[in-house]
């Protein structure tokens, strides 16, 4: 009862693994697929291999996490093997990709065989990549268009919340031909160690994820749903089934789960069974609750 079609992909449930979590190896993606996810998204893959920022690259803060991994990845040249391995999990595998310009993006997309692409134009802490691009509607449209032209599978665009107006960026993605937008990447943040006054992250600042940002996710999804014709995929702070339902009611056709996977690898199964029970009790379908907060 949780199955759906999302940009042409058939998902057994609307719960996906978010990019950058357990997403560097094919086997870890497969593990999450077998643990009940409706689809899995890979770590963001670039044109060259990168080691990322120096450690500490992630730290727990009140009600969430800060990370500045710095997009470590083995580059697309090494990554088809992982995608193929991941596919053994039996659910769609979405390749998250990033680059410095539309050429980078289309080069990578052309070279990889995946069920869909998610364009990371929103990572808040890799210089010259990600959110520095994702705050400019023209660039977002351009990149989306380039990838759409290069591939025949669905293209999703992942948005940053660190903008004055996320709707304009969502609209740019839609104009560029995106099949869906994904909201949100992490929220700009920073933590300082008061014993030493050092910023804790090796990169000094990073992106906030986890429970702390869920209200931001709900608002972004709600706003995007109001202006876009393409589906919105919600991500950010979803930690239990209630959060998933809330984000879907805000207007997400499906959701992704990142940080919360760390403490509960089985979260996809847990959420889907609780969501089913909730829908059953309320006599609602998944489609009924989709965007429901806009109807009251």
């Amino acid at each position, binding site marked *: 009862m949780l199955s759906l079609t999302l940009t042409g992909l058939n998902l057994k449930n609307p719960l996906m693994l978010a990019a950058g979590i*357990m997403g*560097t190896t094919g086997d870890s993606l497969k*593990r999450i697929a077998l643990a009940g996810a409706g689809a899995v998204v890979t*770590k963001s893959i670039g044109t060259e*291999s990168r080691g990322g920022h120096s450690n500490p690259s992630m730290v727990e803060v009140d009600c969430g996490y800060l990370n500045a991994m710095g997009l470590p990845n083995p580059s697309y040249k090494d990554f088809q093997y992982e995608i193929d391995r991941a596919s053994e999990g039996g659910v769609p595998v979405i390749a998250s990709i990033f680059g410095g310009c539309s050429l980078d993006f289309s080069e990578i997309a052309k070279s990889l065989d995946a069920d869909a692409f998610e364009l990371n134009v929103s990572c808040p802490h890799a210089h010259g990549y990600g959110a520095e691009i994702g705050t400019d509607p023209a660039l977002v449209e351009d990149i989306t268009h380039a990838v759409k032209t290069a591939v025949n599978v669905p293209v999703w665009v992942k948005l940053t919340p660190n903008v004055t107006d996320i709707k304009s960026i969502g609209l740019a993605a839609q104009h560029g031909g995106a099949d869906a937008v994904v909201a949100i990447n992490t929220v700009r943040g920073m933590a300082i160690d008061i014993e030493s006054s050092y910023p804790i992250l090796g990169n000094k600042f990073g992106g906030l994820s986890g429970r702390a940002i869920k209200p931001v996710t709900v608002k972004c999804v709600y706003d995007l749903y109001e202006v876009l014709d393409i589906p919105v995929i919600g991500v950010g702070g979803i930690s239990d089934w209630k959060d998933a339902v809330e984000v879907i009611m805000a207007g997400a056709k499906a959701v992704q789960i990142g940080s919360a996977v760390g403490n509960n690898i089985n979260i996809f199964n847990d959420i889907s069974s609780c969501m089913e029970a909730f829908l059953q009790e309320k006599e609602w379908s998944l489609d009924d609750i989709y965007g429901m907060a806009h109807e009251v």
Partner: protein
Amino acid sequence: MRPVNAVITKIVDETPAIRTFFFDTTFELIPGQFVMVWIRGVDEIPMALSYENAITVQKVGHATSALFELEACDSVGIRGPFGNGFGIEKGHILLVAGGVGAAPLAPLAEKADESGIKVTTLLGAKTKDELLFRGRFGAAGDVRVATDDGSEGIHGFVTQLIEEPDRYSQIYCCGPEIMMKKVLDKVAPPKAQFSLHRYIKCGIGICGACCIDGLRVCRDGPVFSGEILKKSEFGVYRRNECGERARV
């Protein structure tokens, strides 16, 4: 958790390239668990707890070198303990330690001995001077030694010391992956536990950098049963900090 400020109270030279750093902070520890040690301004690296309030570090690169610059009263940031640690089995156990791999095994030897478990340790190093925690293992049971240069014990690899592995109720192993792979090939996998080494970033099971066949070294490990490792990339591939696979 944020990093806890741990002040170095004492530094002990264990071997020419290995030092133990004692802290003013005590951790509740299962032997085999590790902490993330933040050398501020430099890097944050995983280190097994070799005592409930200490790590034992081999100088191998920039972060460990920076650690070696520190003195008593200096401090580091510590997150953890993380990971599962060794599962302690009754009976007569065998520890197989290569180099600084003795660090997590020493507290295991002591804890097992205290609980009346018989402990035999096979201790290997390049040379006599580099044998780590020989005294601690000796106090907890029998020790047999191998050195690469024959300066003490048998001349050869510690793996050559393994005899009749089935006699032991459980075998615990930590050292270079190649050595551990040899141990795995010699013993009954379900009866052996290995403490693995992979590149650790988050340390808390989220980023996936440390995965080996989908298992997170930082969270599902670092200790894995031989049974699980038998059919894995263990001993075949490792991954660097980019996630690239490379032959071990």
